[in-house]
């Protein structure tokens, strides 16, 4: 608990120092915002031309993509950059410094290596797109649905976090793990841009049970869009995002702990 309080203190200091350079602060946010505006423009161009992909129309796809974008932004905001640095820290030995302090090593790493606010751009754009989606899509909202949306966003963020934590922890064993991480985080994530119902069974199995990205957007989107895309495997999967998020994060955290116990300093 003490670690957590310390973490927020660190974060406050980080924010203050970041705000010293206003221009850098806002341009980090703007550039990410702009990147994904371009991505959404691409989706719009395609669906403006083709109208529909596998039964999903423009705003269905927007919702699908946005669930991924928003939760990626939310999860990455706190985890991505510090964990990216883990590999080079292991490499040059500075990770040892994290381990000898009386603070939870993960929280200490997250707190001391935080230096990027760009993911706020994802979150701001994500919020705008959600508002547009919900204005266009006829979803009958109820208290339960709103509550479920919020837990999906948190759960999906935890799936992103778990995958980042898991892939970056590999560097506690293998000093060079960047390429593995890039493939899992960037290349595999591309498959989530469109509903996984368009792929063959093998890819669907991988994205559901092995690298379970589908719980980030496809299955929850089915819930909000009345089962669009047909039943893959089992209809219950629509409701599992929060549980999968929690489970995966716990698993990834355990993996990280094992990694720390196994960790042998490079000695430099």
């Amino acid at each position: 608990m003490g670690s957590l309080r310390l973490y927020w203190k660190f974060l406050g200091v980080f924010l203050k120092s970041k705000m010293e350079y206003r221009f850098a602060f806002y341009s980090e946010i703007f550039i990410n915002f702009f990147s994904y505006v371009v991505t959404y423009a691409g989706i719009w161009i395609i669906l403006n031309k083709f109208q529909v992909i596998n039964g999903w129309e423009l705003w269905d796809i927007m919702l699908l993509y946005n669930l991924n974008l928003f939760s990626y932004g939310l999860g990455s905001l706190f985890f991505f950059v510090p964990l990216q640095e883990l590999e080079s820290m292991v490499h040059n030995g500075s990770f040892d410094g994290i381990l000898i302090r009386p603070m939870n090593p993960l929280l200490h790493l997250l707190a001391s290596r935080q230096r990027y606010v760009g993911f706020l751009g994802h979150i701001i754009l994500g919020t705008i797109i959600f508002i547009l989606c919900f204005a266009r899509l006829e979803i009958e909202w109820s208290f339960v649905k709103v509550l479920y949306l919020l837990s999906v966003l948190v759960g999906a963020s935890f799936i992103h976090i778990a995958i980042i934590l898991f892939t970056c922890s590999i560097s506690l064993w293998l000093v060079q793990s960047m390429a593995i991480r890039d493939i899992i985080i960037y290349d595999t994530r591309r498959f989530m841009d469109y509903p996984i119902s368009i792929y063959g069974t093998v890819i669907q199995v991988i994205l559901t049970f092995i690298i379970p990205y589908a719980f980030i957007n496809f299955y929850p989107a089915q819930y909000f869009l009345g089962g669009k895309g047909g039943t893959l495997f089992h209809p219950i999967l629509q409701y599992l995002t929060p549980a999968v998020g929690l489970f995966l994060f716990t698993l990834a955290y355990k993996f990280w702990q094992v990694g720390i116990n196994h960790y042998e300093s490079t000695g430099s």
Partner: protein
Amino acid sequence: MKRVRIYIEYAKNAFKERFAFRTNYLFRIGGRLLFLFAQVYIWRALMGANGQVSTSVGTVTLQDMVTYIIVSTTVATLIGNNVIDVIDARVRSGEIAMYLIRPMNFRNMLFSSTMGANLFNFLFILLPVLIFGVIAFGFMTPSPANAALFILALINGIVISFFINYAIGLLGFLYMSIWHFRRFIGDLMSLFSGSLIPLWFFPGWLAKVSEFLPFPMTFYIPIQILLGKSDVLDCMLLIGRQLLWIVVLYGVAKLLWQGSVKRLVIQGG
């Protein structure tokens, strides 16, 4: 002649440098293949049962699209380059000063390194991915004339992409932090180059906008030529437009170079 030999040495060096990171390139092949796979499925789903769609360049079939993305995914390894990173690193370390006193042209040196890296990418990434893609998904064999024109247009595209990146890199002489601007251009490039979405699917007004940009000259124009979507005369015109862009970008880069070198001298290196 002696100069040329020096530049060839630079190209060789870049080639060998790539060779040192062999495991990395296996992953890059893997990444490219995954990307290709996802794209093919997406276009299959979009084209639906009848497998064709009418566009501004006439009917486009699923086979056209599959060929388009196989070519676009593979030539991306040639059109993309790390010129900005190289310039950025040299400027930050101050090493750039050493390049200024050498009796060689910095731009030509960068260009030869890029070509050396491209040769590596061609042999060890492009060819394997191309062969795999063709076997897995099929390919539309182009006519010899189109293939020849394509190679010409592709080379122009590589040169255009080089100049775009070189010019952005030079801005780093003036402003220490250019990564925002670079991403901004990169994002525009990803949309307007046609590397992901052929411009023939763009709504009319957006296609019009893209005609004023250099980006479609890199991916879209060469591949459009390969697929025989324009007759030979039109192809010549398109290649003419590419040459025009090369001249313009060459001029812009030259001006930027002169301006930024002066500025660098003031800083004192």
